[in-house]
C-alpha cells in the first residue's frame, strides 16, 4: 500500500482555520470522541480517515454544530474558528453554519427546482439584492459545483430528478452558494459510481482555491488523491495527524500503518 499515489501539491496556506483542543464528545454515556486536538488550515483539503464507528463523522459534525440537533449528544473542550469559540453561548449556530457549509453522505437536494435548491441559502441569508444578482450567484455556484453545463437548460426541473452524481454536485453547489469559508463533506462519494466520484474529487481539488475543505472518507485512495493533510481516527482517538504524503508513506503510529495496509479496519 505504500505505492498509493499522493498529491504532489504542497499545502498552500498555513493559516489555521479551525483549532480543536481537548475535544470530548459523549452520546449519552458513550464516550465517542476522546481528547482530540487538531488544527485545520485554510485553503487546504483535510481528510479524516479511520474504520467505521471511529468518530470521524461525529467530529466533523462538531465543526458546524450539527450535533446540536441530537438531544443526547454533549460536546466538551474547545473548538475555535478564526479564534472564536464556536461553542460559546453567544454564538448562534445558524450564523456558524452559514460560514461552515456541509455536504452530506447521501445526496439530499430539496424537492424543489434546481434553481431554488441553490438559491435557498442566499435567499435566507440575504446575499443577493435583486433577481439578477441572485441569478448570477446561482450560475456562479452551479459552475463551481461543476454542474452548470448539465443543468443550465433545465433550472426549473426538480433537483430530485437528477442522477446521483449530479445530485451530489448540486448539493455541493448549494453549499458553496452561501459563500462559506469552510466546507465539510461527510463521505460525499459513498453513494456515487466511480465516474461521478472522480468528478466530485476533481471538484474538491478546485474548491481548495477558495475554501478550507474537510472531508470524511472510507477510501484511503480518495484521501491520498484529494487531501494535503490527513487525520487518522481510531476508537474515538485521533491517532495521527500530518501531511498526507507522510501519513501514507511513513506513518509514525503502528495503528495507522496497520490500517492503511489493511490489517485493521
Amino acid at each position: 500500500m505504500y505505492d498509493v499515489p499522493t498529491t504532489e501539491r504542497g499545502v498552500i496556506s498555513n493559516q489555521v482555520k479551525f483549532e480543536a483542543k481537548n475535544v470530548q464528545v459523549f452520546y449519552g454515556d458513550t464516550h465517542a470522541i476522546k481528547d482530540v486536538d487538531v488544527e485545520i488550515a485554510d485553503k487546504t483539503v483535510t481528510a479524516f480517515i479511520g474504520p467505521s464507528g471511529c468518530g470521524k463523522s461525529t467530529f466533523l459534525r462538531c465543526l458546524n454544530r450539527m450535533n446540536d440537533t441530537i438531544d443526547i449528544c454533549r460536546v466538551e473542550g474547545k473548538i475555535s474558528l478564526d479564534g472564536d469559540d464556536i461553542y460559546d453561548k453567544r454564538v448562534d449556530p445558524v450564523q456558524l453554519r452559514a460560514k461552515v457549509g456541509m455536504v452530506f453522505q447521501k445526496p439530499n437536494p430539496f424537492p424543489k427546482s434546481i434553481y431554488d435548491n441553490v438559491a435557498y441559502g442566499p435567499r435566507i441569508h440575504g446575499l443577493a439584492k435583486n433577481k439578477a444578482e441572485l441569478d448570477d450567484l446561482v450560475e456562479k455556484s452551479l459552475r463551481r459545483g461543476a454542474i452548470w453545463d448539465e443543468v443550465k437548460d433545465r433550472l426549473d426541473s426538480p433537483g430530485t430528478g437528477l442522477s446521483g452524481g449530479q445530485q451530489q454536485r448540486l448539493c455541493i453547489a448549494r453549499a458553496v452558494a452561501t459563500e462559506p469559508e469552510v466546507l465539510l463533506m461527510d463521505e460525499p462519494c459513498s453513494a456515487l459510481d466511480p465516474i461521478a466520484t472522480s468528478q466530485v474529487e476533481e471538484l474538491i481539488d478546485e474548491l481548495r482555491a477558495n475554501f478550507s475543505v474537510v472531508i470524511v472518507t472510507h477510501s484511503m485512495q480518495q484521501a491520498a488523491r484529494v487531501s494535503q493533510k490527513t487525520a487518522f481516527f481510531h476508537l474515538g482517538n485521533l491517532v495521527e495527524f500530518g501531511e498526507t504524503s507522510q501519513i501514507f508513506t511513513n506513518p509514525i503510529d503502528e495503528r495507522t500503518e496497520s490500517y492503511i495496509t489493511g490489517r485493521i479496519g
Partner: protein
Amino acid sequence: MTDMPMEDAPVRGSLTQVDARTKKRNAAEKRFKAYGIGAILIGVAFLIVLAVSIVRSGAPAFTHTVMDVEFTVTQEEFDAAEGELFKTKAYSNLFISKLAAQLEEVGLEIDIQEDAIERLLGKVGADIREFYRENPDALGTPNRFELSASSRVDGYFNGRVTRDTLVESRFLMLADLDLVDVLHEAGIIKGAFNWNFITGADSGVDNPGGAGIGASVIGSFFMMLVVLFLSLPIGVAASIYLEEFAPKNRFTDLIEVNISNLAAVPSIVFGILGLAVFIQFMHLPQSAPLVGGLVLTLMTLPTIIISTRASLRAVPPSIRDAALGVGASKMQAVFHHVLPLAMPGILTGTIIGLAQALGETAPLLLIGMVGFVARGYPEGVVAGFTDPNSAMPAQIYTWAARADASFYDKAWGGIIILLIFLLSMNILAIILRRRFERRW
C-alpha cells in the same frame, strides 16, 4: 474462513417433482388467499346491503305527493270571498268548485267534501287567500298551484298506508282514498321531487311532510367552520412544536400519552365537558353551532395532532439536515421544507377529523342540539354561529325518535344527505393527497 468443517450438500430430488414440504407450503398460501378473498367478499356484501337499504328506505323522503291544480280566480270571486264572514271557508269552497270543474273536463265526477280536502291538503283555503292577498295582480289570470298532500297520502302511494290497514281517524277516512284515486287518475295528484326536504327547515311533530334538512345542514356548516378554524391551526402548531422543537423528557412524554388517550375518549364525555364549561360556566348560548363547534374541536384536536405528527415524522431527516446545513434556522427548516412535504398528510388527517366531527351525535345531545326544532334559517353570519340550530346527525336522531312513521323516511333521507357530504369530504381528501404528494 469459517470454523465449521464443510459437509457435502444433501442430495435433493428432481426439480420437476414437487416435494411434500413445498406442497404443504403452497397449500397454506392458497388457503390464506382464500380467506382474504372471503373476507373482502363479506365486506363488500355488507356494504351493498347497507347501501341498498339506505337508498331504498331513504328515497321516499326525496319525493312527495302534490296536488297540481291550475285555475283562475276573478276579481269578483275574490271580492265575494273577502266579503264573507268565514273567509277561509269561502276560499276552500272556491277551490273545491274549481277542482270539480277541472275533474268534469276530463269526464270524472265525484262528490268533494270540504273536510276531506282539509284532511288531504290541510288548510288549503288559507293558503289560497294568502297568495291572492299578497299578489293581487294574479287575479283574473290562470294560476298553477302545487299543494303538498298530507304525509298519509304519501304513505298511501308508497305502500305504508293501505285500504286494509287504514284505521279511520280525523287524519284520513276510507272515503278520502276514493277521492285520491280519482284525482290520481285525472293526473291532479302526482309525485314530485321534494326540494323542500333539501332546502327547508324542520317542521313540528305533526307535519312530517314539511320537514327539511336544509337548516341543519347550515347548522352543521357553521359548526364545521368553527372546528376547522380552531382545530387546524391549534392542532398543527401543537404538533410542530411537539415534534420539532420540544425537548424529549418526561413531561413531553406525559403530554404525548395524554393526547393518544384523548383520541380514545368517548365523545359523550366531551359533550358533558362542553355542557359544563361552555354553557354552564361561560354562559354561551344553548343549542348554538358555536358551542357545538367548540365541543367538536376538542374531539377533533387529538386526531389532527396525531396525524400531523405522523406526517411530520415521515419527512426524511436528511431534508432537515440539508436546510440546517445551509444555515437555515430551525423554524425556517420546518416551515420552508418539512411542512410543505408533510402537507398532504396533514390535510388528509384534518379532513378525516372533520368528517368524523360532522357525523358525531353524542356530544350534541348534551348541549341541546338534539330535539331542537330548527324552524327557520339563521339570519346573517353571526346569528349562524349563535342562534339555536340543529346539525345533520342531530336532526336525523330527532326524526328517528318521533312518533309519526313518516319521519322514519325523513331520517333515512337525512342519512343519505349526510353520507353524500361525508363521501365528498373523503374524495376531497384523496384528491388533495394525490395533488400535493411529492416524492423526495
